[in-house]
C-alpha cells in the first residue's frame, strides 16, 4: 500500500469510528495507531501512543488549559457570568434582540476572565439559554448566539490557544494577548450586526423583553467589578512582568476562587464541585489532544503534512496568495480537527514559511488562531456546538449548526478585515 493510500485508509477508519459514536479522541487514537502500524510497525505504534499519553498529560505548556478552565468554573459558580448577563440585560433589554446582545456581551465579559471557548459556551448555555427560551426566544437561535459568543474568548485575553501559539513560535504572549483585544471587540460588533439583521428578518424569534429602571441599571453595573478586577490582575500581571502566562493561569484560578469565597458562594462543597467539573472537562479535552497527536504523528510519518505544506509554500502566487492557501487549508483542518492539535502539529512547520514571507508574527498569530478556531462551530466536529448540545439536549446538533451559520459568515468578513487591515490587531501592540 502506498503512503497516500494508508493516509486515506486512516481517515476512513476515523470516520467509521466517529459515526458509531466512539469518543472523538479515542477514535483518532485508534485510527492513528492503525495507520502508524501499517507504515512503521505495531510495536512502535503502541510505544508511540503511550509516549503521547504521558507527554500530553504532563506537558508544562498544557497546564494553562485546566487552570484557565478552573478559573472559568470558579467564576461561573461565583455568578460572575450571571451578573454580567443580568447587567447587560438591564441596559439592552428594551431593544429587539436585547437578550441575544446581552448573551454576547456577557460572553465577552466572561471570556475576559477565562481562557477557553468551551468553558464560555458551557457557562452561557447554563446561564443565558434558559432565560432566553423562557422569554420566547427561539431555542436554536439562542444556542447559535451562545456558540458564537463562546468564540469571543479566543481573542479576548486570556486565551489558551494564543498562549500556545506564543510558546511554539517564541513570540511574546503578552503582545499576543494585547493584539487579540481589538479583533475580539470587532467580533462582538460583527455578531451584534448579525443579530440585528436576523431580528429584522425574523422578529418573532427574538421578542423584546422590557426595560429596566435607572436604579436597576446602576445596581447591575456595581456588581461586575469582580470581573474587571480579575481581568486587570491577570493581564496587568503578565504585561507588567510580575508572572508568566502559565503562572497567570494559576493566579487567575486562585483569584476567581478567592472572589467566590469572599462572596460566600464557594464553600468546600462548591469548590470541590468546581474542581470536579473543571477536571472532567479538561480530561475530555486531553483525551482529544492525545488522539489528535497520535493521529498527527501518523499523518506526519506518511509525509502528508510536509508534502501539503511544501506544496503550498512553492505555489507561484506571491506572499498573499500563499497566505490565502495556508488559511484555506486551516479552515478545512479546523473543521475536522481540534485547534490545540492543529496548533501543536502544524505550526512548527508553517511558522518558518510565514516568517520567510515577511509577515508579522503577532499579526499572523491572531489570524491563525481565528482561522483554526472558526472550526469550533462548524460540522462535522464543532466542539462548542457539541458542548452546548450536551447541556441543552433538546436542541439538536443540526439546528445549532444551522443557527450558527450567519455568525460564521460574519466571521469570514472579520477575518478578511484583519488580513486587509493588520493594524486592527497591531495598533495596541506597537
Amino acid at each position, binding site marked *: 500500500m502506498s503512503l497516500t493510500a494508508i493516509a486515506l485508509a486512516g481517515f476512513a477508519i476515523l470516520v467509521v469510528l466517529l459515526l458509531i459514536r466512539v*469518543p472523538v479522541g*479515542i477514535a483518532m487514537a*485508534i485510527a492513528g495507531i492503525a495507520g502508524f502500524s501499517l507504515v512503521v510497525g505495531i510495536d512502535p505504534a503502541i510505544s508511540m501512543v503511550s509516549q503521547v499519553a*504521558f507527554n500530553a*498529560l504532563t506537558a508544562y505548556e498544557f497546564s494553562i488549559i485546566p487552570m484557565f478552565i478552573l478559573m472559568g468554573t470558579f467564576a461561573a459558580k461565583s455568578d460572575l457570568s450571571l451578573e454580567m448577563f443580568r447587567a447587560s440585560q438591564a441596559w439592552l433589554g428594551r431593544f429587539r434582540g436585547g437578550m441575544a446582545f446581552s448573551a454576547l456581551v456577557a460572553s465577552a465579559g466572561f471570556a475576559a476572565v477565562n481562557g477557553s471557548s468551551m468553558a464560555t459556551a458551557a457557562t452561557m448555555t447554563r446561564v443565558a439559554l434558559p432565560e432566553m427560551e423562557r422569554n420566547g426566544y427561539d431555542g436554536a437561535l439562542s444556542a447559535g448566539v451562545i456558540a458564537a459568543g463562546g468564540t469571543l474568548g479566543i481573542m479576548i485575553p486570556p486565551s489558551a490557544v494564543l498562549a500556545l501559539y506564543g510558546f511554539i513560535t517564541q513570540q511574546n504572549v503578552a503582545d499576543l494577548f494585547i493584539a487579540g483585544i481589538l479583533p475580539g471587540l470587532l467580533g462582538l460588533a460583527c455578531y451584534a450586526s448579525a443579530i440585528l439583521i436576523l431580528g429584522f428578518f425574523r422578529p418573532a424569534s427574538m421578542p423584546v423583553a422590557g426595560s429596566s429602571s435607572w436604579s436597576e441599571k446602576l445596581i447591575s453595573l456595581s456588581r461586575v467589578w469582580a470581573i474587571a478586577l480579575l481581568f486587570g490582575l491577570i493581564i496587568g500581571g503578565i504585561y507588567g512582568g510580575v508572572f508568566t502566562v502559565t*503562572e497567570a493561569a494559576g493566579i487567575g484560578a486562585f483569584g476567581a476562587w478567592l472572589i467566590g469565597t469572599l462572596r460566600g458562594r464557594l464553600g468546600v462543597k462548591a469548590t470541590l464541585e468546581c474542581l470536579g467539573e473543571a477536571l472532567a472537562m479538561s480530561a475530555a479535552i486531553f483525551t482529544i489532544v492525545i488522539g489528535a497527536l497520535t493521529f498527527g504523528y501518523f499523518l506526519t510519518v506518511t509525509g502528508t503534512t510536509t508534502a501539503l505544506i511544501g506544496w503550498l509554500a512553492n505555489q507561484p502566487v506571491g506572499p498573499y496568495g500563499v497566505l490565502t492557501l495556508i488559511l484555506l487549508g486551516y479552515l478545512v483542518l479546523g473543521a475536522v480537527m481540534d485547534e490545540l492539535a492543529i496548533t501543536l502539529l502544524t505550526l512548527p512547520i508553517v511558522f518558518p514559511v510565514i516568517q520567510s514571507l515577511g509577515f508579522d508574527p503577532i499579526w499572523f498569530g491572531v489570524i491563525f488562531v481565528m482561522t483554526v478556531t472558526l472550526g469550533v462551530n462548524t460540522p462535522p466536529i464543532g466542539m462548542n456546538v457539541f458542548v452546548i448540545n450536551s447541556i441543552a439536549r433538546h436542541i439538536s*446538533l443540526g439546528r445549532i449548526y444551522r443557527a450558527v451559520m450567519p455568525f460564521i459568515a460574519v466571521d469570514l468578513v472579520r477575518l478578511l478585515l484583519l488580513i486587509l487591515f493588520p493594524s486592527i490587531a497591531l495598533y495596541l501592540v506597537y
Partner: protein
Amino acid sequence: MNRFLRAIELAASLMLGVVTLITFANVVMRFGFNSALMDSFDLTRMAQGLALAWGIAVTTHRSEHITIDGLWTLMGPRGRRVMDIVARVITGSFLLVLTLAMAQRAYRNMLSNLSTAELSIPIWGFHAAMTLGIALACFVVFASIRLVRNGGYTRGAA
C-alpha cells in the same frame, strides 16, 4: 463501585487544586522569599498528569467524553443499543491496549532510572499511578457494557 469512583473523583479534583496552588505558591515564594520551590517544575507536571489521567476515568464514568451523535440520534432503541455496545467494546479494547502500553513504558522508565531534574525523584512511580487511572477508565467502560445490555443505560458511548 459508585462510591469508589466518587473517591477517585475527589482525589483527582484535589490534585488539580494542588497543581493550581503550587503554581500560585511559586509566584508568592519568588516575590516573598526570593526562592523557588525545588523541582516545582517537574512535580507540578507530574501532579497535573495524575489529576488528568484519573480525570479520564472520571470523565469516562460520567459519560462526558465528546462524541459525534449524528447517526446515533437517527437510530431506534435497538440500533442505539447495538451501537452503544460496539462503541464500548472498541473504546474498552483501546483503553486496555493503552493501559498495557503505558505500563510497559512506566516499566522501561524504571529500568532507565528516569528522574526529576533537581531532586532526582524517580518518575516511574508517577507514570505507574497515571497508568492506573487509564486502567480504571478501561474497567468502567467494560462494566458499563453489562448495563447497556440490560437496557439500564441510555447515555454516552463511553
